[in-house]
């Protein structure tokens, strides 16, 4: 057996400090957790788009595409999670396939958590497929645990999600019980007994750890609990011992509370259909005044805003605005929106405007200059946003030198760096010969009409050849002799002769 443990291991007391636990549970206050386990969430998020026929959700893993969730009709064809997509197609040719969307799953969990806040103030996400609710304080209000579960169940049925609800005195235990499809545990006294019957896989420990336990003959939680604590910590891992302690309330099990992220939205109806940007701007200014009031009230900032222009018959037109750093200043928001809205081209006149913010972010205090000077970095950000907003993101960039022999690849467009970046490249150039300050984007054949726009008369070579021969590995190899040349009208040119075709090209100007 590959994972056999040498027997002398047992004799060595390693420096693993195994915490002992009191017989009394560590939790003084009684808690009551409900775990909402959504076993088929990966598919449920696509439920609205799926039809009655077989449908699966797939995910690429190790270069293969595997089915991770199915609907009932696919299951009846014999498709179960874990099969390869090709095998699934063999079983059902009319299969509908969706690619797994972690983002959608996360959004579904968040929306459920936001809904569940009406039942309790402590809601915690347990990605990828569960939500935990601490309801000890809510039981009196709603009458009983069953009433709360009933309300949750109704909501989940309305959403059409497959679910399993389980209550237990600890969050971890509730989650494990829900995964194992065992009924509720009301008191701590019965917890270890109920948990003990569960197979080890409900813990979702890494597969290697589970395999190790299986090889040791450990199949259930009860088997785990029966092992000596120090041996378990040494052989399996302290983390997993802590997990067991948390499940049995021998150790605190803090859970991060879900904090809903908010957006803010407002709408202005126009008195008549119009394409007049001045009227739009008046409405936008009005909405921004309301927005900045709201932002100040909540001490929040926004990083993105979306303007939706509603038409009478057509679908609404969207304009999205993102900026580099969050802001709450009205003037800055207004100037960013104005540049684009004033020049917007609409398919039809608009009848109403709606402004929706991105998530509201808490205000980050920024250090202020004693003399109230705006730092250059901020000014640079504002400038970049404004230029990109009006000219398009492509039109603004920085440049960088690249260590490359072929002249056309020796430079590159770079992200326009914020002004505070320290320069780290060596200003000394590795080139033996001087390079021209202007490079033509595409070399022009010497003597052609395009090239004659940049020089006049005849051309005289002014230097010896600089041979550049490189790039055979990527199919765009250059094999050229470069010369500095002077036209009869005193322009200095950088020209080359292709050593294969023997044609002359103009590649740069010594500006």
């Amino acid at each position, binding site marked *: 057996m590959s994972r056999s443990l040498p027997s002398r291991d047992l004799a060595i007391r390693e420096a693993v400090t195994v915490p002992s636990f009191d017989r009394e549970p560590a939790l003084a206050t009684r808690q009551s957790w409900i775990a909402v386990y959504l076993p088929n969430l990966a598919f449920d998020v696509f439920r609205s788009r799926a039809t009655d026929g077989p449908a699966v959700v797939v995910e690429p893993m190790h270069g293969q595409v595997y089915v991770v969730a199915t609907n009932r009709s696919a299951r009846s064809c014999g498709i179960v999670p874990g099969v390869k997509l090709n095998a699934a197609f063999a079983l059902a040719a009319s299969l509908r396939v969706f690619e797994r969307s972690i983002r959608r799953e996360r959004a579904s969990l968040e929306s459920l958590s936001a809904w569940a806040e009406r039942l309790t103030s402590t809601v915690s996400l347990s990605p990828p497929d569960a939500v935990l609710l601490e309801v000890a304080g809510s039981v009196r209000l709603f009458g009983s645990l069953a009433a709360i579960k009933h309300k949750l169940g109704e909501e989940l049925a309305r959403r059409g999600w497959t679910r399993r609800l389980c209550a237990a005195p600890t969050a971890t235990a509730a989650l494990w019980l829900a995964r194992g499809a065992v009924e509720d545990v009301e008191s701590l006294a019965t917890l270890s007994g109920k948990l003990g019957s569960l197979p080890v896989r409900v813990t979702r420990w890494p597969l290697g750890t589970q395999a190790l336990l299986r090889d040791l003959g450990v199949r259930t939680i009860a088997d785990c609990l029966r092992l000596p604590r120090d041996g378990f910590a040494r052989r399996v891992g302290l983390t997993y011992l802590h997990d067991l302690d948390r499940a049995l309330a021998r150790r605190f099990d803090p859970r991060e509370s879900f904090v809903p992220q908010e957006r803010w939205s407002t709408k202005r109806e126009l008195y008549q259909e119009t394409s007049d940007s001045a009227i739009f701007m008046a409405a936008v200014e009005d909405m921004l005044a309301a927005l900045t009031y709201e932002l100040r009230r909540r001490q929040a900032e926004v990083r993105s805003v979306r303007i939706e222009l509603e038409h009478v018959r057509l679908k609404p037109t969207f304009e999205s605005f993102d900026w580099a750093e969050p802001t709450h200043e009205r003037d800055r928001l207004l100037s960013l929106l104005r540049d684009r809205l004033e020049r917007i081209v609409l398919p039809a006149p608009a009848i109403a405007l709606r402004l929706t913010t991105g998530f509201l972010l808490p205000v980050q205090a920024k250090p202020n200059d004693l003399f109230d000077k705006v730092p250059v*970095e901020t000014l*640079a950000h504002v400038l970049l946003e404004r230029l990109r907003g009006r*000219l398009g993101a492509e039109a603004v960039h920085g440049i960088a030198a690249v260590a490359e022999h072929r002249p056309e690849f020796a430079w590159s467009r770079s992200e326009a760096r914020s002004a505070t970046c320290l320069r780290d*490249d060596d200003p000394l150039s590795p080139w033996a010969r*001087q390079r*021209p300050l*202007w490079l033509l984007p595409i070399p022009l054949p010497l003597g052609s009409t395009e090239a004659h726009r940049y020089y006049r008369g005849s051309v005289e070579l002014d230097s010896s050849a600089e041979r550049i021969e490189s790039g055979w590995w990527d199919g765009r190899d250059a094999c050229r002799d470069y010369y500095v040349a002077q036209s009869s009208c005193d322009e200095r040119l950088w020209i080359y002769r292709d050593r294969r075709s023997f044609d002359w090209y103009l590649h740069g100007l010594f500006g």
Partner: protein
Amino acid sequence: MGSNDLLDSDELRGRIWRGSGARSARVALPTGFAALDRYLPGGGWPLGPLIEVFVERYGVGELSLLMPALAALTAGEGSRASTRKWVAWIAPPFVPYAPALQQRGVAVDALLLVHPSGKECLWTVEQVIRSGSSCGVLAWLAAADHVALRRLQLAAEAQGCWTILFRPMAARRERSPAALRLGLEREGSVTRVRIDKCRGAWPALVDIGAIDIGTAPDGATPNGAVE
């Protein structure tokens, strides 16, 4: 008592405006060409007012003329990261070649390239100057009337921004509020700067000698294959 003694008396000093004093008080960026520095009031490119450079064709040394100043502007301020500002190139006609700029000592990461469409060009120049995040602007402006240039001039003077406008020859005859208007003339290896207008000095033809615009080192053996 000579007239100079009278002027230097404590009573009158500070009350009399003197032309020579005004010259040196200007903020200027040395051009890197001794003859030009001697000619220009303040001893270099004026920082703030517009500078118009008339170019008929490219490749005659119009950029090389600016390189020493550009290198000083981008590298000199790099010492203190928080004061580092951009030098914006607006609507350049070709690709400014980064290796060549490095050879002339320009810190290429301090350059910002903006490619506006023809109509947006003036707007872009004004935004870049007004933002206060740029210490220099090089703009290739085809058409601009007196009012537009006046706006740029006011913006640039308020920010103390080194503003070079490359203009076509046709614009040379137009009225302009620019403080310095110049063109380049080359004869063999000698380059002359023809000054059409300069605030604080008379028009002149300044001989700046040979500008280094890409002469291969003499006697250099052919480099041969690079690889």
